[in-house]
């Protein structure tokens, strides 16, 4: 399964080549052109010569994880992270570097800690990865500072329609775009697979300057807090209710005209959808929104519980409906000449 292959490959910010390779192999036969830019973004165009409106689809390839800062005298790897709540790190397995050296993030035995100590959050600087090396030299043969460590988490289905995996943010977006590119749509579509979203929307700040589209649809995995005891108004999104349409976030406002058009598309086609009910966060949309004179953006996202953790959870139906709505909307957008011929 595509999403399994995508989530089980590693792509930390700046090290996306593994994921990019998977995507390139998937889309090669379905696009007219494909290139990797200076930031490592993958940009592909389908039906390059088709006339009519031009939609660009954007998703990011990178995921959160750890970086090896160095190796201590006993052969443990000291780490740093960006975008990972250190509280989720203790007692996890990771795969270090290109050669996927298995390692574990150890933690002090329960009986040797005080209750006061256990009340404090774990800190990244106090944790280390154990690959089983007994000395610094031994570890240095396998790992070097700067190597990344990705969460080791298997893609699996469980519960009612649920999927657990790491990096659903934003391999779900990548998978939706791949699905569109593999379809036989006749319209001109650009696909942008960005690098380094998780460290400050960096890949897209370069790719946005290379994309001249009438509309950008940014596809994401987004916050979902429909979990135990969270009141309805703080859930942001609810699983099973379909793709989440963005309203606004810290860096973009998603225009009403397009929001309403996508809502209409969903209703006309009987596809469930919901709003992303928060103004928090920021996505690659920010760069497309403001690049070269400004462009309208739409944000569509698959609700993901426990985002930025090795055990993100999504509802398969939301993922499928996100793909369906994206496809239907592209069709609608083209048939109305870019919403210009709306009745």
């Amino acid at each position, binding site marked *: 399964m595509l999403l399994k292959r995508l989530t089980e490959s590693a792509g930390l910010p700046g090290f996306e080549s593994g994921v990019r390779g998977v995507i390139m192999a998937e889309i090669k036969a379905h696009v007219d052109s494909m290139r990797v830019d200076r930031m490592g973004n993958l940009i592909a165009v389908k039906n390059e010569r088709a006339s009519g409106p031009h939609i660009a689809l954007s998703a990011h390839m990178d995921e959160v994880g750890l970086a090896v800062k160095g190796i201590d005298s006993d052969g443990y790897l000291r780490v740093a992270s960006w975008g990972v709540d250190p509280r989720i790190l203790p007692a996890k397995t990771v795969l270090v570097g290109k050669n996927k050296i298995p390692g574990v993030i150890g933690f002090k035995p329960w009986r040797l800690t005080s209750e006061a100590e256990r009340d404090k959050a774990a800190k990244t600087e106090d944790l280390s990865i154990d690959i089983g090396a007994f000395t610094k030299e031994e570890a240095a043969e396998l790992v070097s500072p700067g190597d990344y460590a990705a969460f080791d988490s298997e893609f699996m289905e469980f519960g009612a329609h649920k999927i657990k995996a790491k990096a659903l943010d934003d391999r779900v977006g990548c998978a939706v775009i791949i699905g569109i590119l593999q379809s036989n749509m006749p319209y001109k579509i650009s696909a942008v697979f960005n690098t380094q979203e998780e460290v400050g929307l960096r890949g897209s700040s370069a790719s946005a300057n290379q994309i001249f589209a009438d509309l950008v649809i940014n596809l994401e995995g987004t916050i979902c807090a429909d979990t135990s005891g969270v009141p309805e108004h703080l859930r942001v999104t609810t699983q099973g209710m379909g793709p989440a349409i963005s309203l*606004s976030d810290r860096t973009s*406002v998603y225009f009403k005209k397009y929001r309403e058009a996508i809502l209409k598309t969903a209703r006309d086609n009987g596809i469930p959808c919901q709003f992303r009910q928060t*103004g928090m966060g920021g996505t690659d949309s920010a760069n497309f929104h403001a690049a*070269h004179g400004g462009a309208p953006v739409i944000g569509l996202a698959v609700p993901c519980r426990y985002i930025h953790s090795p055990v993100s959870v999504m509802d398969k139906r939301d993922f499928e409906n996100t793909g369906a709505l994206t496809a239907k909307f592209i069709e609608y957008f083209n048939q109305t000449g870019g919403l210009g011929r709306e009745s």
Partner: protein
Amino acid sequence: MNLELLQKICGLAAPSSGEGAVRDCVIDLLKDVADEIKVDPLGSVIARKKGAGPKVMFACHMDQPSFMINFIDKDGFLRFSHMGKLAFEQIRGQRVVFQNDPPGESLRSVMTGVIACEKIRDKQQASMIHLYMDAGFRSREEAEKHIAIGGLCVFAGETVIDGRKIISPGLGRAGAFVLAETAKAMQSSPNDMYFVFNAQREVDFAGAKASVWTVSPDYAVCFDLAPSHDIPSPEIQQLPVRAGNGAAIKIKDSSVICHPGLIHFIEDTAKENGVRVQFEISESFQSGAGPVHTANGGVPAGGVSIPARGIDSAHPIALLSDIEESLRLALHLAQKPFENLV
């Protein structure tokens, strides 16, 4: 100074991405004096008065701190996200006015609401997530007849001008007033002048980021408010801006260090024309000059700011004398050749 126009521009409601009312007003004011007017994809207004010299962009913004409804509960209470740098204490207890959304006959009337806070036992723990809007509805169904998810609103509050000061939730548009008046009053300019009224300042300056690319200016001067440091808070009194001391020439804020060439040029212009000025050095304040000066490979940028108190609150205050000095300065600047500044 045309206080009536100041009152009008500041008194309109223009939440980020819903700047239509101000956009219409600006276009109306400038349609007869500008050589070209266009509205860009984000809704910013770009008005050009042609000249032979370098491209000079005067930029301001049209929007104001605002809110977007993102949830309606079963009892008809509204939850929202905010756009702009607004603190919990500034929002709580304020009155808001909704933009007419969705449009419809019954909605043409102004609808107001109040921002209230859930009862929290430990008051210290109360934060943004506990705030909600109460517009007097009793059910979700009732609320949905008047307001949709994605609907926008701004702080409610009369725009008050007395002989000395202006208080207005839309005070940030004093810069737009200065630019509109300048564009109207200026004679021919030696510069190719672009007056840009940006949308979406409060969404990380999205409007300014987009329009600077479109205009691609040689020089930029940004007109905005600046926090006045003369309030009773000893921690910031070491900073220089004082309401009543005239237009503030921006040296730096937390998003930009202005180009020395422009700082001197603006200062010289003020001196030559007897405009009362001071200098702005702000610490935790960002302005449109930030994204503008790093755009397109670098745009030498300066700023003229109007000192204001309570800048990130529902009811900011500025002194009319400072607005007047800023307007005079803008007018002199627009008519002076921006030559060899870099």
